[in-house]
């Protein structure tokens, strides 16, 4: 398949717990300042690019946010997403040391999820660079049913009050209020219209997806982004002929999330009723037909095989996916734990364990406890993640950015950096603009950087 640029942005939840309860407390803002201190020395605002080409900054609502560098392969994107977890973990350990020096003894917890206890939400945003020529209404129309139903494999799972059925598939579903919207903090839409391509606007648009959950499982991330990439390619090539338009997409996304058997049927505008899994089968069959006549590649083949495997399992019994999908893995282990230890679903220990699933600090995390005991299917190897912590992708312009950042960090050059440009300050005074994110090197810029 034709190359595409992918990126993931993750807003992390963060809290500091003192060793001695109620001794001294730190606000979330204070904790975030400690976290950023070592990488933003001398800067006005906590917002930096890293040597692997990623951006790490403080976002709305005081969340530390990690945006992966531009990747053109979904497995590589998974490695870079995981690298973000490792980087923020390292920063947290260093921040705790500095806090202790200042008399604050305690622990930082960092969660890659989408909900706090009262139900405030923060997101994981997917970015897909798309061809500009696609009609937006058509794009939205074909994507909405896909986004409403893909939660059956991409959801991160959450505990619900017992009178509402204990457990739901998606964390974000109940925060989605519109079909199409530009808002990201209120009136969140299934389709978000914030179009900042950071590239040649005549050729490209950015599809900014805010409807999905943050994933711990590499498998869920791989499938979420991989299947979406295939659907987008079919839309760009005007291949999807079926009409899956839903009667009430905002209600459907909630109803599907509430049904852990995955059997709930949603109504289409043409009066037909289908389950989320049945609708996903239709997209999968369409993708198979598409790939019979379009060029595929090994990552696409892996996405297709896993997509089919997952739908087959979901159809008979979702619990078969207790090594692959976040919502199923977490559900299985919450159930096992509460049964063995005699807790009720609404016990604080169970809610605590739900949060701990998403803790990115491995020694504190249910997810990583399971991964370390080989209870979880992986997509990438630890070596790939370690590499991604320090090195940018080779085939996108992140490579070019990463090299400059390295020179900056070595103190050899002063420059301003953004997704689409690098500006060298004294004594060079040169601006390198990159409107083609597929191009890893600029000849002229490369000559300059190798001479520094």
């Amino acid at each position: 398949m034709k190359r595409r640029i992918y990126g993931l942005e993750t807003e992390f939840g963060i809290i500091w717990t003192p060793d001695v309860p109620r001794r001294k407390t730190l606000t979330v803002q204070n904790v975030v300042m400690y976290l950023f201190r070592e990488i933003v020395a001398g800067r006005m605002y906590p917002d930096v690019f890293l040597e692997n080409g990623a951006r790490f900054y403080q976002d709305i609502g005081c969340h530390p946010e990690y945006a992966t560098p531009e990747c053109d392969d979904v497995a590589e994107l998974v490695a870079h997403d995981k690298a973000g977890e490792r980087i923020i973990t390292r920063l947290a350990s260093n921040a705790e040391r500095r806090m202790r020096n200042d008399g604050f003894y305690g622990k930082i917890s960092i969660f890659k999820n989408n909900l706090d206890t009262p139900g405030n939400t923060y997101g994981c945003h997917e970015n897909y660079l798309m061809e500009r020529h696609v009609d937006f209404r058509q794009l939205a129309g074909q994507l909405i049913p896909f986004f409403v139903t893909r939660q059956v494999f991409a959801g991160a799972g959450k505990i619900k009050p017992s009178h509402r059925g204990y457990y739901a598939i998606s964390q974000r579903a109940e925060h989605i209020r519109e079909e199409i919207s530009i808002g990201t903090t209120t009136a969140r839409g299934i389709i978000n219209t914030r179009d900042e391509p950071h590239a040649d606007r005549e050729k490209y648009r950015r599809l900014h997806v805010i409807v999905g959950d943050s994933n711990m499982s590499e498998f869920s991330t791989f499938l979420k982004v991989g299947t979406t990439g295939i659907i987008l390619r079919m839309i760009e090539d005007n291949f999807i002929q079926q009409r899956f338009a839903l009667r009430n997409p905002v209600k459907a996304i909630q109803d599907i999330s509430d049904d852990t058997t995955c059997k709930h049927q949603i109504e289409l505008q043409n009066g037909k009723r289908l389950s989320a899994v049945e609708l996903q089968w239709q997209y999968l069959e369409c993708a198979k037909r598409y790939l019979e006549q379009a060029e595929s590649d090994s990552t696409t083949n892996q996405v297709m095989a896993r997509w089919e495997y997952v739908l087959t399992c979901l159809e008979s019994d979702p619990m078969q996916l207790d090594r692959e999908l976040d919502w199923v893995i977490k559900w299985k282990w919450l159930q096992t734990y509460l049964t063995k230890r005699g807790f009720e679903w609404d016990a604080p220990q169970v809610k605590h364990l739900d949060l701990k699933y998403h803790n990115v600090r491995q020694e504190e995390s249910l997810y990583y406890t399971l991964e370390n005991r080989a209870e979880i299917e992986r997509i990438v190897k630890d070596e790939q993640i370690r590499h991604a912590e320090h090195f940018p992708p080779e085939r996108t312009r992140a490579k070019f950015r990463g090299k400059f950042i390295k020179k900056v960090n070595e103190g050899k050059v002063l420059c301003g950096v953004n997704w689409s440009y690098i500006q060298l300050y004294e004594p060079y005074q040169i601006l390198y603009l990159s409107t083609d994110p597929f191009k890893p090197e600029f000849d002229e810029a490369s000559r300059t950087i190798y001479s520094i």
Partner: protein
Amino acid sequence: MSTEKQQEHLTRDVDETEEIQLNVEPSEMDEEFVEDLDTLLDEIDEILEEDSQEFVENYIQRGGQ
């Protein structure tokens, strides 16, 4: 009952006994599995060391995008 039928009956009995014997091995695996599960549950107990009620109540964010 003809000898032939008796013979068939006997064969079936033997088969069933063998099946039962086959089941012995998985039960040893089960024990191993239960041990593994107990260790894992102990590890989960460890990550829940702090006061769950207090931790959950304190986990409040401003909310983001």
